[in-house]
């Protein structure tokens, strides 16, 4: 049983995304701890990449701030080791294939397992290319998270059948970022997912308000929020963790008892 399953045991899951090192790792650590204290069920930690092609302007900005602050992959591994002395909720990395590949895929994935990273989200690894990392993920016990998009259509069942950890259901076309409205018919996609797997499914992209989180979590097993949290970091910098704590509480309260 994947450790990630724990995240879905406390009602609907709330999953915040934070870019490591934006603006520095001490702030990221404080933000993660505030999020956990206020009800986050799973933490998605971004390893910054120079050219994040699946991100909208807000998360692109976080990647740039983190890289200009000087973080690198080794520093992020040590940082996670530190977090794991007291943070017990499941944690996954979100980054791009080249960050893993360039580090040495085996060295990267075995280190993930060793420091307590439970899964990997790689938006530029679709189903057809998962063999690049999947055998190593299986060897070391790290879940390779599958993404399903509104355009997946005939692919939903195939992807869901092989999914592990949780399924990241992308709510809308386009890149990451807050949206005033989510128009995709997600009910039908979730139904197909349920018919093919018992792995939980959380929805992300475009969610920023408690009402949206409630709407998305009622269709699925949880809500993922990135840009709205990154915006707090952009606005408050090192003072952001307490605002992130308050925000996470408002979001988790909105979906806890659905």
């Amino acid at each position, binding site marked *: 049983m994947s450790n990630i399953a724990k995240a879905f045991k406390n009602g609907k899951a709330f999953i915040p995304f934070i870019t490591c090192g934006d603006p520095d790792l001490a702030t990221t650590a404080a933000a993660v701890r505030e999020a956990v204290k206020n009800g986050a069920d799973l933490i998605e930690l971004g390893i910054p990449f120079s050219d994040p092609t699946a991100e909208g302007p807000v998360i692109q900005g976080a990647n740039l701030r983190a890289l200009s602050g000087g973080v690198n992959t080794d520093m992020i591994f040590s940082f996670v080791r530190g977090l794991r002395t007291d943070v017990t909720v499941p944690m996954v990395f979100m980054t791009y294939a080249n960050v893993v590949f360039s580090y040495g895929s085996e060295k990267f994935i075995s280190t993930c397992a060793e420091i307590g990273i439970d899964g990997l989200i790689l938006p530029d690894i679709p*189903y057809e290319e998962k063999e690049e990392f999947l055998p190593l993920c299986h060897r070391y016990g790290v879940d390779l998270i599958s993404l399903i998009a509104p355009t997946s*259509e005939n692919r939903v069942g195939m992807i869901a059948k092989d999914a592990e950890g949780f399924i990241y259901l992308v709510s809308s076309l386009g890149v990451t970022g807050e949206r005033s409205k989510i128009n995709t018919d997600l009910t039908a996609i979730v139904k197909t997912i349920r018919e093919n797997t018992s792995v939980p499914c959380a929805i992300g992209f475009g969610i920023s308000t408690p009402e949206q989180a409630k709407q998305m979590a009622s269709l699925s097993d949880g809500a993922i929020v990135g840009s709205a949290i990154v915006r707090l970091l952009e606005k408050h910098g090192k003072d952001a963790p307490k605002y992130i704590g308050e925000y996470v509480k408002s979001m988790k309260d909105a979906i806890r008892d659905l």
Partner: protein
Amino acid sequence: MTNPHGRFGIHGGQYIPETLMNAVIELEEAYNHYKNDPEFNRELTGLLNDYAGRPSRLYYAEKMTKDLGGAKIYLKREDLNHTGAHKINNVLGQALLAKKMGKTRLIAETGAGQHGVATATAAALMGMECVVFMGEEDTIRQALNVYRMRLLGAEVVAVKTGTRTLKDAVSEAMREWTTRISDTHYCLGSVMGPHPFPTIVRDFQAVISKEIKEQMLEKEGRLPDAVLACVGGGSNAIGSFYNFIDDKDVRLIGCEAAGRGIDTFETAATISTGRLGIFHGMKSYFCQDSDGQIAPVYSISAGLDYPGVGPEHAYLYDIGRAEYVAITDDEAVNAFEYLSRTEGIIPAIESSHALAHAMKLAPTLSSDKIIVVTVSGRGDKDCAAIARYRGEDIYE
């Protein structure tokens, strides 16, 4: 050369967001259908011949040959195509394919602006909407081409992220494609990106080597000893090489942009300085740092200022079938001026990289050898920038 999963050896693949997967699958299916469709091929050949002006000339550069004193030099004149570069070969093919697929809108990235101009041209011709993404830095370096695209009815978006050059224009075009797929075709300009683009673009550019072969047999009764072309993503080079790959006696030489030198950080010579990675939908060689962050590359040539290289080039390099050399800004500018004075042909600064290598290579070969250099585009667009490089303060 392509296996069923879009691989060239270990290179290539489809490293893209799930959102785009059905779009590239749809494109591959449509391409596999139309590439053998007589009606499609008749229409495309008609456009290439009557609209773009093919076949392009294979010109014996006699003065250059005599001046350099060695191998006989032929120039494949892609600069004489409509819109002034080889880019139109690929664009007419993709635009026609997109139209057959029912798409009404073309998006494209551009570096020097030649691919953007070609896409805007095809969109105007076929009555399609067109949006071109161009790094802000390049909109300044190639201001004339920005005007040409707007004149042709395209919207030009100046990309302000990253290094504000070709790499960022590709990223932004990919992001745009994920927001709007149903009516939009991403008209990728080089032999790069996810499968099937490297194969589609190669096939549409392979007309260059098909013609070189026919023209060379007609003029000389034999194949050339070497074919030279500049390489950024590598579309004119693969087009120039493709029909010679099985002719093992023909040397294939790709000329990358060394910028200020391959021992500096201000270079875009991917095969000389890069290493294996995964970016922009493909596995190939990329200029990157030890953490896999893509390097901010540099070249005087906006069209070669890209941190990666097409997967088929990476493969041809791996198996030793093609050679890749690095040419500095200075060498390219010298060749730009040299060809202008010697033959009365102003080449694009991109093509000048291949000409610069020809200037080094020809004198080392005997006079019974023949080399072909692809002049991928014309250099009018570069005149102001080269003048500034030489210290003359002129603007278009």
